[in-house]
């Protein structure tokens, strides 16, 4: 290896080790900060150096061009870097790319929209004070208020704060402004949090939003009959069971979702309280062979409650609702002339792809299921990254496996593993 090659190899080794160390650091600071970190200007310089080293390697080492596997792997990495740069926020800015990079659309059933809500964070100022732990609460600390005043931006007493999903950040809403605050070590970074609507060159119509559930075990009543045997009947009014021998029969006569008891004329009366807490219950009548009727209650949330009384043990088993198996939005893409140009029922893992955008099932109207929330992401650079992925995969599999397999089959001696 000559000196030039040696230096390139050292550079490659140092860069790969550096990336490893940075990735470990990134794993410790959490996704949100890691994303900001790896998209910062110093990181962009690092990525550029990495790409340059790969290009220099391809130029200096003829084997990297001649050996197909090595070429595919290294060139593939260059493609991933290029694709990543094109798709990054800075890449959009540099290329003057005006497309919606990431946004959200809320669409009601039967309606159409081309409006995507885009969130932007514009850095305002940093505070070098440690607000130890205070980002976990909804109370805005006095010191933060003072800092805002110092910056000639007041926070009114009406301002409310909430913790964003990533835990390490806050959103403060103070009509009409919103601020985004992130903790980085002993610093708080304050951003102007702007939400603006952007228009897509076509619109999306939601025909229907629905959820599908897994089948689940229907609720049932378990009754201990003679000889400590357990038997089940569906938890439906009118269902009955012969308990055998002295015990008579049991019959479900009432079903409650929010069971309550009250005293009326010295008697306990059970009733359904629409404003009460969930307390699913069954009322069971047990008729003895002599015709004597006793009333019993079984509660799914309190199994065993009342078991100590005489008579058979009654257990109300009510599996909590079926798990959601799918969120489905039936979408149509409608172009400027009102023509339907694409159609797809999207679910999680199955986005709609149209004109360089992808639409993902993101959220929905939790109260009535009347609207859906889609995430819109533009695809700039993604295909380049995926081409790189293909190159790396094919290169690695060819170079490390298939090449040797074919050599073996061809009868030549194995050469790897020097």
């Amino acid at each position: 290896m000559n000196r030039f090659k040696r230096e390139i190899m050292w550079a490659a080794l140092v860069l790969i080790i550096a990336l490893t160390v940075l990735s470990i650091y990134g794993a410790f600071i959490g996704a949100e900060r890691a994303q900001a970190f790896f998209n910062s200007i110093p990181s962009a310089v690092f990525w550029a150096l990495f790409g340059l080293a790969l290009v220099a390697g391809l130029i200096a080492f003829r084997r990297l061009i001649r050996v197909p596997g090595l070429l595919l792997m290294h060139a593939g990495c260059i493609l991933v870097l290029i694709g990543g740069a094109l798709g990054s926020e800075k890449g959009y800015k540099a290329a003057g790319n005006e497309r919606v990079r990431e946004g959200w659309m809320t669409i009601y059933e039967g309606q159409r929209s081309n409006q995507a809500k885009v969130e932007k964070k514009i850095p305002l100022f940093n505070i070098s004070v440690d607000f130890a732990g205070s980002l976990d609460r909804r109370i805005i600390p006095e010191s933060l208020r003072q800092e805002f005043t110092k910056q000639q931006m007041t926070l009114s007493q009406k301002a409310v704060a909430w913790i964003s999903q990533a835990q390490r950040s806050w959103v403060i809403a103070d009509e009409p402004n919103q601020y985004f605050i992130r903790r980085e070590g002993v610093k708080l970074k304050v951003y102007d949090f702007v939400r603006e609507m952007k228009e897509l060159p076509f619109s999306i119509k939601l025909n229907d939003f629905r959820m599908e559930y897994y089948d689940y075990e229907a609720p049932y009543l378990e009754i201990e009959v003679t000889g400590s045997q357990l038997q089940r009947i569906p938890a439906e009014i009118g269902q009955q069971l012969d308990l055998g021998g002295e015990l008579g029969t049991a019959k479900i006569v009432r079903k409650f979702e929010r069971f309550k008891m009250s005293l009326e004329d010295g008697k306990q009366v059970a009733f359904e309280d629409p404003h009460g807490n969930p307390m699913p219950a069954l009322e069971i009548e047990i008729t003895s062979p002599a015709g004597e009727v006793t009333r019993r209650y079984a509660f799914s949330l309190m199994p065993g409650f009342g078991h100590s009384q005489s008579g058979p043990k009654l257990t109300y088993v009510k599996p909590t609702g079926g798990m959601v198996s799918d969120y489905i939005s039936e979408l149509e893409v409608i172009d400027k002339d009102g023509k339907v140009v694409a159609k797809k029922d999207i679910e999680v893992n199955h986005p709609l792809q149209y004109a360089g955008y992808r639409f993902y099932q993101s959220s929905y109207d939790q109260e009535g299921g009347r609207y859906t929330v889609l995430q819109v992401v533009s695809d700039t650079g993604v295909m380049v990254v995926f081409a790189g992925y293909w190159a790396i995969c094919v290169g690695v599999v060819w170079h490390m496996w298939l090449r040797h397999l074919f050599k073996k089959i061809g009868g030549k001696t194995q050469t790897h593993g020097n």
Partner: protein
Amino acid sequence: MEIKPTTQGVLIYVTMAVYLQAFIVSLLGRRKVGHALYLIGFVVAAVSWGYRWYHVGHVPLQNLFEVFLFLGMIYPLSLFCRRVLRVGGYTADMMIGVIVLFPAGFVFSARPQQLPPALQSWLFTPHVAVYMMSYILMAKATVQAVCQLIGLNPKPGEDILAPEQATYRMIYAGFPLLTLGLILGSYWGKQAWGDYWAWDPKELWSLVSWLAFLIYFHFRYMFGKKHPNINSVLAILGMVAIIITLLWVNLSKLFPGMHSYA
């Protein structure tokens, strides 16, 4: 931790017991008996996987329980490494067989699971299966690297590679799978969340594992066998990164204030 009192469970425990016996007998120098037991263990493991197939009516590679059950059939891979790749560690493989069956026997539920929407993807199984297979190969590489460091060389009559070369060959075999696992995961991320790379800790650790082996390759290319101990240490560091990746969700609880992902 749960014990499975079912036919499936019994098959798993029998496989583990036979593998363990094979391991102990081999360590005591009774190679032939060990080999035979290993083969018997494999047959039970194959019956166990076949039983599962019959039971659920589809190729049983759809959840973690089934993937680990599949990995329990390590014998052919072990034989391939021994005979074709001429890599030692045949006895250690029996123990690896016990270790991979442990989660199937005691940790993961055998009940056909109801997958939340995010996991309903054809990518789920290949992503996990490919990763698991690469982990086995990298574990074998680590065994070889440790042999190199402590100077445990094959006996003169044995037709197997010296540990340093064997480490390299195992990493050569495992790296394509590790690469596929990473890339399938990334592609899945694009399908499910709209982004192929989200910089979350689990992703970053899997990148670190991959990079560790890149360091190994480039270092070994530069220096060849001049620093065999450093080569071995780099290979072991790769495995350490893999273990951290696997356990990160649990480990991260050691670091207060950090959020973890599944």
